[in-house]
């Protein structure tokens, strides 16, 4: 795992340096567009101050050793250390992602189970229909519709994660309640597509498993249908479910950028996008590096869970 993360850090660093130019060139271009001229002396001073003139491997070495000391580098456009910027963003991002993941799992598990055990019933068709609509609707579209409906009928704005008065306030019970009031929208918006997909996966897996001979064996032992369902087919049908945790998690964080922008969420997505546009390399690099680590951790967690659920893949 450690070598994987080290290799990842190199790849991340190379990728964010790949676009021509650096933060300084986009800064100067931005200033010029605004009508300001930056003197060449000032550019040289800035270049030296931020170390843009050093070769890539030196910059990488400085960055990676800094990370081990808890120093993620400096964000040029925010004029703040990256560490300060990303912690609050990452925290909220994790909160939204994990809640979305839990929502996705619970809803898709319940509906998928129902769909498979009542195949071709009205309920199954309804779930399939809603599922495909959920899969086909772009998230930002759903976000816009929900925002419109909420503003039109309930008269309050649901964008962001906090109401205006709590946005910069310290944590309190009232702030938490306010957060919960706002949280359900991003959960639904970024969760529907995943839920719809998982419903289909679980339904297909379960239908496969329900016809397996071991289900008949359990029946001939006199075990009740409900007990059979949960002890045998559900457990085996969950295996592909679990193995997707790793990348589901990362895609929940990075995939919801458009939603986050539309809903004005203070999560990692929009900030990452902004950082990439302005070539704010340490900020963008730290974000991408974090997402990579989360993916690696997600994969590790799913591997451990898989080994618990399926004895056939345990190491001997």
């Amino acid at each position: 795992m450690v070598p994987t993360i080290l290799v990842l850090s190199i790849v991340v660093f190379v990728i964010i340096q790949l676009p021509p130019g650096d933060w300084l060139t986009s800064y100067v271009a931005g200033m010029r567009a605004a009508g300001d001229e930056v003197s060449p002396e000032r550019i040289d001073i800035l270049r030296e101050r931020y170390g843009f003139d050093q070769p890539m491997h030196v910059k990488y070495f400085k960055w990676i050793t800094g990370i081990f000391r808890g120093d993620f580098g400096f964000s040029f456009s925010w004029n703040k250390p990256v560490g300060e910027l990303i912690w609050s963003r990452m925290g909220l991002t994790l909160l939204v992602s994990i809640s979305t993941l839990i929502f996705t799992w619970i809803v898709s598990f319940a509906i998928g189970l129902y769909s498979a055990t009542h195949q071709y019933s009205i309920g199954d068709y309804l779930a399939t229909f809603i599922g495909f609509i959920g899969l086909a609707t772009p998230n930002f579209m759903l976000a816009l519709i929900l925002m419109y409906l909420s503003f039109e009928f309930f008269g309050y704005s649901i964008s962001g994660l906090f109401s205006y008065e709590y946005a910069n306030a310290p944590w309190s019970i009232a702030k938490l309640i306010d957060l919960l009031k706002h949280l359900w929208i991003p959960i639904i918006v970024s969760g529907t597509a995943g839920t719809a997909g998982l419903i289909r996966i679980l339904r297909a897996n379960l239908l496969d498993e329900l016809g397996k001979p071991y289900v008949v064996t359990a029946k001939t032992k006199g075990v009740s249908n409900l007990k059979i369902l949960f002890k045998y087919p559900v457990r085996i049908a969950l295996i592909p479910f679990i193995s997707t945790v790793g990348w589901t998690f990362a895609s929940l964080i990075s995939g919801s950028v458009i939603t986050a922008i539309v809903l004005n969420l203070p999560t990692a997505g929009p900030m990452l996008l902004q950082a990439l546009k302005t070539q704010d390399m340490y900020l963008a690099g730290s974000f991408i590096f974090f997402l990579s680590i989360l993916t690696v951790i997600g994969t590790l967690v799913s591997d451990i869970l898989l080994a618990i659920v399926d004895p056939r893949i345990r190491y001997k």
Partner: protein
Amino acid sequence: MSKLLEVKNLTVNFNTAEGIVRAVRGVDFEVDKNQVLGIVGESGCGKSVTARAVLNVLASNSEIMNGEVIYHKNNEKIDLLKLDKDGKEIRKIRGKEISMIFQEPMTSFSPVHTVGNQIMEAILLHTGLDKKEARQRAISILEEVGIPEAQSRIDDYPYQLSGGMRQRAMIAMALSCEPSLLLADEPTTALDVTIQAQILDLMRDMKEEFGMSIIIITHDIGVIAEIADQVAVMYLGRVVEEASVDDIFYDPKHPYTRALLKSIPKITKKDQKEKLLSIEGTVPDAYNIPSGCTFHNRCEEYMAGRCDKIQPELIEISPSHKVACLLYEKEGD
């Protein structure tokens, strides 16, 4: 001998996308206490469906159209098909009174639970034993069926056992609650020949030890010769002949039974080489069952104008020998 199970006029249909398949069309047979009934027939003749219908554990696209399955529990007669197929009463019979083993022990065990877990499940369900006692019972039954080091093997997963061991474990699971009847659906088909003989020996020993009856379903007439007392020959969803094992082998009446016996390879001396006979044609499509006697288009003794018109009933031609063939029906019947 007293009866244990009677199957009367059992009729099962499958609803498939291509149409209705009449898999079992009015099957009758009986099993006495401590008797081994062999049901033999080609693939697709409805023998496995018959076995599953006894416990009412058929696939969801099948439907039992007609018939009775009467189980004699002490002096009580229970029609298993009248019980709710997911209800409590039949679940008390499944696994405890009547249990079942299958062709493929690998897929018939859940791959993600230990063998012991799956054996104990039945014991915990049907007896008052607690977990520890159930484990002891599972170990002793595994020893009984000849699994070495049952103490540690009980915690193995099915994939860790060999094919023969798995089938032994399957038998142990079926016998764990000492049932009166064991339904064995092709129990030796997936095993190699030496293991087959061992499993058949084991089943015979267990039958003596527990005093139970067995219905063994097979397409292998050799297996029938090994183990069965009474034999029912099935063709396209019907029993065409039912007799004692000796009568089936030495005095077969139905042309299909005779043809089956002729198509067994024999070990002969080099100079007496005979050509292996086979039955003409193939088993008809189950969607278009022939009229009259379903065997008429492959039969060597086909009587035009009769066999393709009249469906013969199973009639008794001597005590304990029944045959469904127009050759044995009296003229004018």
